């Protein structure tokens, strides 16, 4: 079995990559992808902790199931918003939508 600290390290790196994507990308779809990377890191954590659960409870896996569903749902809403926005401003670049500021 894979040691827990290595798993955590892996998910931690994925977390950082996701953050990097959110910070630097301007394309809405890429932002969604970045957020999904973070979400996957979280799911990985849950599964990893479930595998090493001292009480032997599969709760972590349950949570992972829920989160997979949640992530898909969230993406659907995000895409709906971006489609609606695309209809109006003709772009999915978030840098094009900067009317509200200061």
């Amino acid at each position, binding site marked *: 079995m894979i040691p827990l600290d290595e798993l955590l390290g892996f998910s931690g790196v994925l977390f950082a990559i996701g953050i990097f994507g959110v910070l630097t990308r301007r394309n809405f779809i890429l932002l969604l992808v970045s957020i999904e990377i973070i979400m996957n890191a979280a799911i990985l954590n849950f599964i990893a902790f479930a595998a090493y659960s001292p009480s032997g409870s599969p709760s972590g896996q349950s949570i992972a199931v829920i989160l997979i569903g949640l992530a898909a749902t969230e993406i659907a809403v995000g895409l709906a918003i971006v489609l609606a926005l695309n209809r109006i401003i003709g772009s999915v670049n978030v*840098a094009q939508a900067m009317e509200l500021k200061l």
Partner: protein
Amino acid sequence: MVLGLGGRFLGKASGWIAVAAEGLALLAGVWIALTEASASTVYHDRSFVWFSLPDGTNLVMGTLVSPLGALMLIVVNVVGFLVVLYSIEYMGHEEGLPRYYAELMLFLTAMNGVVLADNYVEFILFWELVGLCSYLLIGFFWKRPSAASAAKKAFLVTRVGDVMFFVGVFIFFTAFATQTVNPAFASSVSVYPGASCPGHLTPTWACSGFVFAPPNTDSNVPFLAASALSGAANQTLMTLGGIMILGGAAGKSAQFPLHTWLPDAMEGPTTVSALIHAATMVAAGVFLLAITSMYLGFTPDAALVILGIGGFTALFAGTMGLVANDIKRVIAYSTMSQLGYMTMAVGAASFLVVGPGAGMYHLFTHAFFKALLFLSAGSVIHALNTQDLFEMGGLLKAMPVTGYTMLIGALALSGVPPFSGFFSKDALLSLTWTAAQKDPVALPFFLMAATGVFLTALYTFRLWFLTFSGSKGRSEAAHHAHEPSWIMRAPLVTLAALSVVAGFFPLIGGFNHWLPGLSYGIFGFTQTSKGWVFAAADLELAIASLALAFAGIAVAFALWGNGRVFHLADDSVWKAPQKVLVRKYYFDEAYDGLAHGVILGAARVFDWVDRYVIDGTIHGFEQVFSMASLRARRAQTGLVSSYAMWIVFGLVLLLIFVLYGIPYLGTLWGG
């Protein structure tokens, strides 16, 4: 009493309703006060629980008719009634009268609330409300931008004071909450009916009835000894708390660093100036110090600071009053100066650990003659439509009632016997003198105050001579001046009468416990257990102050009497000392040039300090905040990624805190 308070809400429609309501309140107030004076116990109702804390402590909206409160009740309602009556004609032609009366009534309600509050929480609540009303009333003439900005300034400056006040009260609370009071002391105090706390006296919120001197006892017994605290209270904290409370009082009562709003507040209607900025609201600061003085007794340092601030303001404002040309501003500066005296007296009383009676005595007399001065000034303004002193003159013939009542007010203010101001000023000067003998640090401030007596007489009579003396007016309007109707005259006459007799009031039996600790002075009368006896210990002081007052009047007469015009604060004022020498028509005394050079110089310096340092600080803060605001706004780029970056930034900070900060804290506090 409930009727009196509730009645005030009715005055929404117009003046007469307000007059009726306030009249009712006046009757109720006087009745309450007289009941207090004759009753053997203090009326103290704590049945209305405002809200309770989880530990069972109740914050009570209680009603406490303390001796000081009764005194204030009289002051507030008498002046309030007369001012409302006066407003009927004075404000008759203005727009927005219902608003005016509603605000005035709300103000009076709040003021009565302050006076009758039995704990600091309630006090703060009404105190804030008083500030709000003041803001609304100063800004009554919204059309004038100056009025609006003056209102804002008043609100903000007093708000600074209020923050200090909150902090001070909180500090006192924490300082006392952990202290138990010496039981022997507590039992000795609880003979006084105001001490409502059963058994022991812990000034917590649950039980913070203001406690003052035991009534009718030998007042040379200090009402509170610093040794009353069994454990040593944290002296530094207490001093800080005392100074913070002073900050609150200074904000409301326009004491030195926080005084700038008061002259500007003269943008409000004159009636408002008379009521709020002379007689009642500004006095609330002194009242606060007075009711806090039992705590201040624990902190001689804070008491000395209070004394010093008061003394300095007395002089400082006096010099400013000398160079102002606007009739209302002169009176406003004089108000500041007199409030300085009161603050000084309360500070001295706290320092000497006696009751704050002397300051309150001056507050009482001052309320009447200052309201009188303002209302007469209002009457003049009403007749002339100008506030410039140099456009007046020779009005005594046209407006005899106004002129003579104002003369009475001026004499009272200057401290000439037998007018009321003399007694109270003498009382507080002699108290301060005692304090100065105990600790020489107070001496310079006593001297400042003494100089202030001379200045007071000088600027007061400058005002009076410029307005009324001479044979003809200096402007067209002044020639056509006429007396106002009886509605305006009646309050003037009443106030004039009160200004004359108010000084004798403590001599009446049954009332002297309203002014605890007032044993020094009153023209040589001293309060003992046998009543008032003549003891000439302070006679010298009384005579000295009288001499100073007369000197001031004499100089004023020399400069401005009989219609002479002497521009003390001319535009080319830097050349003033020479001018003084050049224009010495009738007097050749060397001291005059010197005195005016000095005084004028001081006035200039103070004016400069006021305008650039203090106002500048306030504006500076505004500027700094505005700049910071503008800078920080730039971060709001509208780009969603940059928002995310701030989130990550915050996340990193939190992570660093939990990963490194918390373990560090663990080692810091010994694992």
